[in-house]
């Protein structure tokens, strides 16, 4: 008879998600500096606007705040709340998302994500993630996670190069 069973941990998934969130965060920081679509999306957010994407129940999480017109990754203090809270209901879902097996719209469709905050803000957040993911991943992977892969022109190739080099390393 098994009693008082305490579940173990999915260490590999956790590490992958953690690294993925970090890369996504850096890419968003970087894109918020120069990428037109991302800049347009965050225009209506006041400085100080904060969003966080948490994996339930223990994380990892990605929290970002608008500061001086651009997005910066931050660490939320205990009891500190955010304007927009996106909660992924379990680690496996976050893992599939970050490894491009599932797009954000699928995660929503499967009811595996919960949002607290304004609907318009969540739509902006999702579009930012879409935009940045389109740069992060090659087209063949994008097909899984985006409803429509954007056409890559010269400028977009330059943006992608920028995000790969300075962006994901330095967040610039």
């Amino acid at each position, binding site marked *: 008879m098994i009693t008082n069973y305490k579940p173990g941990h999915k260490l590999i998934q956790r590490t992958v998600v953690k690294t993925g969130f970090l890369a996504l965060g850096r890419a968003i920081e970087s894109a918020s500096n120069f990428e037109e679509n991302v800049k347009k999306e965050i225009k209506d957010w006041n400085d100080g606007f904060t969003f966080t994407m948490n994996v339930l129940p223990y994380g990892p999480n990605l929290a970002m705040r608008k500061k001086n017109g651009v997005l910066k990754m931050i660490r939320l203090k205990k009891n500190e709340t955010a304007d927009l*809270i996106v909660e992924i209901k379990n680690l496996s879902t976050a893992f599939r998302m970050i490894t491009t097996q599932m797009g954000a719209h699928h995660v929503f469709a*499967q*009811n*595996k994500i*919960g*949002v*607290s905050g304004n609907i318009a803000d969540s739509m902006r957040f999702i579009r930012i993630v879409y935009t940045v993911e389109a740069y992060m991943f090659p087209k063949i992977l994008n097909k899984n996670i*985006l409803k429509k892969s954007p056409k890559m022109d010269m400028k977009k190739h330059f943006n992608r190069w920028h995000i790969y080099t300075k962006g994901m390393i330095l967040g610039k």
Partner: protein
Amino acid sequence: MLPKYYEFQNPVKINAGMDALETIPYELKQMNASRPIIITDKGITNAGLLKTVLNSFDDSDITIGVVFDETPPDSSLKTVNNIAKLYRKHKCDAIIALGGGSPMDTAKGVNILISENTDDIRKFMGADRLKSNMQPFIAIPTTSGTGSEVTLVAVIYDEENQVKMPFTSSKLLPDVAVLDPRMTMDLPPKITAATGMDALTHAIEAYTCLQKNPMSDAYATAAIKLIGENLLNVIKDGKNKEARFAMANASTMAGIAFSNSMVGAVHAIGHACGAVAHIHHGTAMAILLPYVMEFNNDVLGDLYAELILPLAGADIYAATGASKRSQKFIGLVKSMNQKINELCKMPIRLSEAGLKKEQFEQVAETALNDGAMLPNPKELSKNDVLEVLERAF
């Protein structure tokens, strides 16, 4: 194709048909309640429906704690707060919502306030934030369209901050939905038409959007069949009891379908038309539905094609070549609109419904930020929305 994963929930008991209202006292007792509040609006009182409902309690051991019939057309935070005060003052122990979308949403807001024992429901905005046991809650719809009696969402307007607050939680679902044909008998043709087209839109979007699943498909196609057979008849002859009852069933089934599989771009653009130009929700749905389907057709054509069967029957399905079916389905919806327009003058163009060209930009921007855009399988850019508006103008 089945989805890789889906969730489906409908715990609402449905009491439907002759003398359905008279079952309410028993249901309340089952939930240990005996002093309900009735939340409704002036239109319902003036139409005599409140009186019918009150009379249905005769010879029962229920006391109606208080009746609130001043719900505004858009459910508001202030109203929710006022009603909660009345609820507490009159020691009520259950909620009965009587009406269309607004009394339902308002009642859901009151249920949050009372059950979470709070004075500010804003703390519970968002998805799955409710943790307490809710008050017994019975919904009596008086239109056949919104499906609110079986949906887990409430939208409440915060006048102070001028924002619409969404609340979603399975705890907002009523315990019982009462479909009594007496409640929809006197609906004027135009409202019958618009709300009926809203129900059709719920079913079609539920059947075609990203969250579709075999359970919601079953409800959606059953709803479409009833709408195809009955909507025009009930607009022609509002006293047709059977057709009225069929539409009430259709609307509830479409509600169950879309509460589980969400709606798409028709709703996103329609909500925006409502917010910007105050176009009636059902009317906006009727007008936009065929044009959004035309936009979606290259992605969703196969699914539209299947829907000829429930909407128009096997003969028309079989008589249409496979490659022409999706276009045929869109055409069927258009000709339904045309007939409705001839019968009751419901507008079938955005210009007739009061939208101005200058408002296109604002409608498009608003629509892109509407949550219903997300489950739409085909991505819409601002230009795509503008094009749909242009075509529906």
